[in-house]
C-alpha cells in the first residue's frame, strides 16, 4: 500500500501542467478547429509535441516502441488534460484503442499500429459505448465478415484514420480495425459539447478480413471490458482535474468579488459552500485514484472500483459545476468565463461510457451482495 507519488510522478505532473498551461490555450484551439472546417484534415503541432514528450507512447511496452508506464502515469497526464481542457484524441487513441491493441492484438497488428500511435502518425477512434453497448453486427461473409450498424457521436472520429469497431459475432463480441475511408463507411462530423469533435458513423456492409479482427478473437469481451474500464479510470482523473480547476477559480473569484463592502468569501453561507466544493474535489480525486489503482485488479474488484468512481465522480462533477456557476452569479452563466467550458467537459464525462446513473446501477448490482459490500479496498487483508 502506497499512495505517495514518487519523484518521477511529480516530474511528469509538473512538466505536463507547465507545458499545457503555457502552450495549450483552449480558446485559440477551439477557434482554430472551427476555422479548419468540419472535414479538414487534422494535422497539428500539438499532437506532435505530445509525441515528442513521449506521452503518446507512454503505456506501451518497450518492444512495441513504448515507455512501459502504467495507469498511474496515464492518470497524471489525464488530470493535467482535465485542468487545461485538452480536446486532443488521447483517451480514444492511446488509452482505449492503443490499450486494446496492446492487450490482445496479434504481433502483426501491434507492429502495424503501436509504434505509429507512439510517433503521432496514427490516430484511432472507438465505435463503441460503455460496457456491453455494441451497435454493430458482424455477419460471416466468405473468409471474413460484413459489418453493419451505426453509432452517433463517435468521439474523435474526424481526427482518426482508423476505427476500432466492437461488433456482435453471434453471441460474442469481437473487435475489428477498419480504415475510416473504407468502402461502406460514412462519417458525418460534428462538434461536441466540450469543444472536441465527433462523427455520426454508419457502416453499411463493410467487408473486413479475419486479419482485421483484433487478436483473431471472436470473443474479446473481457479485454474490451478491461479497456473501457481503464479509459473510465483515466477519464475520472481527468474529471478530478477539471473539478479542481473549477474549485480554484470559484475560490479566487469569491476572494476578489466584493458586495456589501467586503469579499463575498467572507459570507458564511458561501464559505461553507466553498468548503463543500473543496471536499467534493478531494473526494473525486480519492475515488478516481481507486479506479486507477484497481484497473489491473481481478475483474470483479476492477468493476466495483470503476463503477464506484464513475458514479461518485459524476456526482461530484455535478455538484461542483452547478455551485461554481451559482457562486459566480450572473457572470457565471455566460460564455465569457472559462468555467462554462469546465462544466461542459464534466457533462461530457458524465455522459460517456455509461452515465452516472448507469454506473450507480452497475455498482448497486455488485454491492447488493453483503460480503462484497463488507470487503475493504486494500488488497487484501487476511485473503
Amino acid at each position, binding site marked *: *500500500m*502506497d*499512495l*505517495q*507519488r514518487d519523484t518521477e*510522478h511529480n516530474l511528469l505532473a509538473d512538466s505536463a501542467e507547465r507545458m499545457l498551461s503555457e502552450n495549450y490555450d483552449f480558446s485559440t484551439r477551439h477557434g482554430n478547429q472551427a476555422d479548419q472546417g468540419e472535414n479538414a484534415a487534422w494535422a497539428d503541432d500539438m499532437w506532435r509535441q505530445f509525441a515528442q514528450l513521449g506521452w503518446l507512447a507512454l503505456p506501451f511496452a518497450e518492444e512495441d516502441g513504448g515507455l512501459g508506464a502504467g495507469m*498511474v502515469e496515464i492518470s497524471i497526464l489525464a488530470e493535467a488534460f482535465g485542468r487545461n481542457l485538452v480536446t486532443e484524441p488521447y483517451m480514444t487513441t492511446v488509452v482505449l484503442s492503443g490499450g486494446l491493441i496492446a492487450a490482445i492484438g496479434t504481433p502483426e497488428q501491434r507492429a502495424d499500429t503501436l509504434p505509429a500511435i507512439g510517433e503521432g502518425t496514427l490516430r484511432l477512434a472507438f465505435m463503441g459505448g460503455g460496457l456491453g453497448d455494441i451497435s454493430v453486427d458482424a455477419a460471416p461473409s466468405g473468409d471474413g465478415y460484413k459489418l453493419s450498424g451505426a453509432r452517433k457521436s463517435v468521439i474523435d472520429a474526424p481526427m482518426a484514420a482508423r476505427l476500432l469497431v466492437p461488433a456482435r459475432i453471434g453471441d460474442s463480441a469481437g473487435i475489428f480495425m477498419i480504415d475510416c475511408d473504407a468502402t461502406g463507411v460514412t462519417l458525418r462530423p460534428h462538434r461536441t459539447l466540450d469543444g472536441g469533435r465527433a462523427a455520426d458513423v454508419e457502416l453499411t456492409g463493410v467487408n473486413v478480413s479475419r486479419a482485421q479482427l483484433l487478436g483473431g478473437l471472436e470473443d474479446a469481451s473481457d479485454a474490451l471490458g478491461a479497456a473501457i474500464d481503464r479509459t473510465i479510470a483515466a477519464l475520472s482523473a481527468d474529471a478530478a482535474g477539471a473539478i479542481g480547476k473549477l474549485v480554484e477559480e470559484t*475560490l479566487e473569484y469569491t*476572494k476578489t468579488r466584493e458586495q456589501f463592502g467586503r469579499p463575498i*468569501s*467572507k459570507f458564511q453561507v458561501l*464559505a*461553507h459552500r*466553498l*468548503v*463543500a466544493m*473543496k*471536499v467534493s474535489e*478531494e*473526494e473525486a480525486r*480519492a*475515488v478516481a*485514484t*481507486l479506479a486507477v*489503482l*484497481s484497473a489491473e485488479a481481478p475483474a470483479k474488484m476492477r468493476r466495483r*472500483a470503476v463503477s*464506484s*468512481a464513475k*458514479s*461518485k465522480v459524476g*456526482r461530484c462533477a455535478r455538484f461542483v459545476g452547478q455551485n461554481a456557476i451559482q457562486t459566480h452569479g450572473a457572470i457565471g452563466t455566460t460564455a465569457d468565463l472559462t468555467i462554462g467550458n469546465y462544466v461542459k467537459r464534466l457533462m461530457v464525462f458524465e455522459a460517456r461510457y455509461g452515465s452516472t446513473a448507469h454506473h*450507480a*446501477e452497475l*455498482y*448497486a448490482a455488485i*454491492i*447488493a*451482495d*453483503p*460480503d462484497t*459490500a*463488507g470487503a*475493504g*479496498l*486494500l*488488497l*487484501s*487483508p*487476511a*485473503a
Partner: protein
Amino acid sequence: MDLNLAAEDVAFAKEVRAFIDTNLPDATRRAMTLTTAFLNEPELGYEWHKILHEKNGWSVPSWPDEWGGPGWTPVQKYIFDLESARAGTPVYNGQGSRMVGPVLMHFGTQEQKDKYLPSICSGEDHWCQGYSEPGSGSDLASLKTKAVADGDDYIINGQKIWTSFAHKSNRMFALVRTSSEGKRQEGITFILLDMDLPGITIRPIIGNGGDHEFNEVFFDDVRVPQSGRVGEENKGWDVAKFLLEFERGGALVAGRVRAQFAKVVRLIRDRGLSNDAHIRARMAEIGADLDTMEMVDIRVLSDLQSGANPGAISSMLKMRWSSIRQEVSELALDAAGEDILKWEPERPLYDALQLPPDEEELLGIAPRYLNFRAYTILGGTNEIQAEILGKRVLDL
C-alpha cells in the same frame, strides 16, 4: 502507487483475524450487534480489553511499547482496526487510550505517566471528558467552570455536560477556567481528577434513542490536587487542541462504517428489497461515498507511513465519516419500514431481549438512527469543521 498490502502485513492480518475469531466471546458478538448507542457499554468492552491486554498490549493499539502498547506501525494499527471492525469487537475507554493517554505521553510529567498510563493499558481506569458546558458547546473557549488555587489544590465549581459515561468512569480530564484575564483561551487549564471526590454530582441525560450515555456533572467546591494539572496553568487550550486532533483524525474509521454498511446491505437482501429502486439507488450512493472516504483514510495512512503530515484533512474525515454513518443508519431505517414501530425501552437491548436474531436486530434500528444524529455534533459540529477547513485549507 498501489493498494497491495505487503506480505508481512497480510500475515499480520491473518494473525489478528485468527486471534479475534478464537477469543471474542459469542455473547459479546451478539451484544455488539444489539448496541444502539454510538459507544458500547464500558462493561461490555472491559472483558475484551482484558483479553487484548494479556496479548502483548493489544488493548492500546496506538501506543508505543515503552508504555505497554504493541508498538505497531500505522499500517498494523489500521489492519487491527479493520479486523476488529469486521468481527464487531467492542471498544473500551477510547477517552483513555486514544485521548488522555497520548496527551500524557506528550505533555505529562514522569509522575503522571507512571500513575495513569499503566491503568489505562490494563483497563483498570475508565476516563471521561469534561469539556462542554451548558453555555459552551461549539464556542468551547467560553467555558466557565472555575478552578481557584488553594494551597496544593484547586477548588472547582461549575458544571460540565454531554459527558459520555461519566456514571461509569472513575477518572475525568477536564478544562477549567483559572484566569479571566486576557484572551479567553489563555485562562484555561487542563486537569485530571477522580470522579469519587466529594462535591461531584452526576445526573443522567437520556437520549432520544433511549440510551443513557450522556450526563451532566456538577462541581460543588470540589478539592482537586494540583498534581493533576497537565501542562502549565492557563496553557490548557494547547493541550485541548492536541487532543481534539486525536479525537477527529486519530481514528480512521473505514472498517467500522463498512461493517455497519455490510450489515444493512444484508438486511436489505434478507427483506427482499435489493431491487427496490429507492433503496438500491441510496445503497449505491452510500457505498460509493464509503469507498471514497476509505480511499481518503488509506491516503492518510500512506502519509503517516511515509512520515508526511496529513494536515487539516482530519476535519474532512470527521465531517464526511459522521455523515456517512448517519446515512447508513438512515438506509437501515428505510429498509425496516413499518418494523421500526415496536419499541423496547430497556437498555442495554442485549440484556432486555430474548428473541430470534432477526427480530432482535430490528429493535435496534430506530434507536441507532436517533443516537447517530450525535455524530455530526460531538467532537466539533460539522459546521465547526467547515469553519476550520475554510480557514486552514481555503484561507477564507
